[in-house]
């Protein structure tokens, strides 16, 4: 199912149609193709390897069960990414219920320390190799609060609009805007900090 007779890889669309008819081999091929991306999204949100593996697998199971609902408005991998994001958000909400109302939560609406940060005037990513840049971005993302990291991932990587983010995160558009603003400001300062460390 993975390749056609002339060794041209079968498209996702064909594999999806086959899987929709109950072909599990086709579905396995889709999992094989996109497993890293789905896992990576779960990991970026959860920052925990085991949780990311479990949630990404749960997403694939749900994907199989809901495959008939997939109409092809977006690509299959985008559709699957939305499923894993929703599962991660549910999991984060469950974890949040166990967390006490922290200072971080109280500060996030008013900006907390991010409001006092000076505006970064130099590009902290200049002359960085792409691999190093990605590494620094990942390091900085790991230092953000769950709420700031999530909103940044949904906006910058998933390219969702404010309204869609608010719906998924179950908060107001104003909260999304505020979280996104302070998440960006914190990212800018963290990246500038790494640059300063490098120069000193």
């Amino acid at each position, binding site marked *: 199912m993975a390749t056609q007779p002339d060794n041209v890889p079968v498209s996702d669309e064909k594999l999806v149609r086959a899987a929709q008819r109950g072909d*599990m081999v086709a579905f396995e091929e889709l999992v094989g193709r996109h497993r890293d991306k789905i896992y990576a999204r779960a990991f970026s949100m959860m920052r925990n390897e085991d949780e990311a593996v479990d949630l990404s697998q749960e997403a694939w199971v749900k994907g199989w069960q809901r495959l008939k609902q997939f109409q092809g408005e977006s690509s299959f991998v985008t559709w699957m990414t939305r499923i894993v994001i929703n599962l991660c958000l549910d999991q984060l909400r469950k974890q949040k219920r166990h967390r006490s109302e922290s200072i971080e939560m109280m500060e996030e609406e008013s900006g907390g320390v991010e409001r006092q940060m000076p505006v970064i005037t130099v590009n902290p990513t200049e002359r960085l190799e792409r691999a190093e840049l990605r590494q620094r971005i990942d390091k900085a993302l790991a230092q953000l609060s769950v709420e700031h990291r999530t909103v940044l991932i949904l906006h*910058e990587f998933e390219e969702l609009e*404010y309204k869609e983010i608010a719906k998924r995160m179950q908060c107001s558009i*104003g909260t999304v805007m505020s979280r996104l603003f302070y998440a*960006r400001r914190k990212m800018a300062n963290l990246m500038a900090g790494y640059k300063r460390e490098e120069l000193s």
Partner: protein
Amino acid sequence: MNQDQELKIQAFLDGELSEREARDVQHWLASDAQAQALVTELRTTTSYLKGNEAAVPLPETREFYWNKIQREIEHQEAAPANAARLPFWIAWRRYFAPLASVAAVTMLVLFSMKMNDIGLTDGPNGHLAEIENLSEHSSSLSFRSQKENMFVVWVYNKDQKNDETDLDSMDDTIVQ
């Protein structure tokens, strides 16, 4: 700059403002150096984030990862099928449970009567006893005749007992 203005600048950069609002922000930005610096910072941050998400490879082999998914799919597909069969067994359990309890009680009574040779009503021709059981809907009566070398158990519906007026006369007939 207050917080509302900062968020407005961000919304402008993200293309979330109406045309009119965007024009207003552009006019204001042209004369505000602090706002321009913030625009530069936000633009820079957005530009290096786009397309630079770290690639995180899955820490499991394809086969191992898929096997767990496949098992879970098969497990979940089997679950509704089992659930669909459940009402059949539940329905049968409703009949089996009282019958089994009556049979068990009867055996117990038979055994105790044989061991102790006692009864609630003894007559010259036989012995009649009411047997308790745990079912709230059914009850039973037993009759034993050593002379005839027989033992009979009547199982009846308690709810219908009052309607069946000839039950008492039947008892009389048996005991006499």
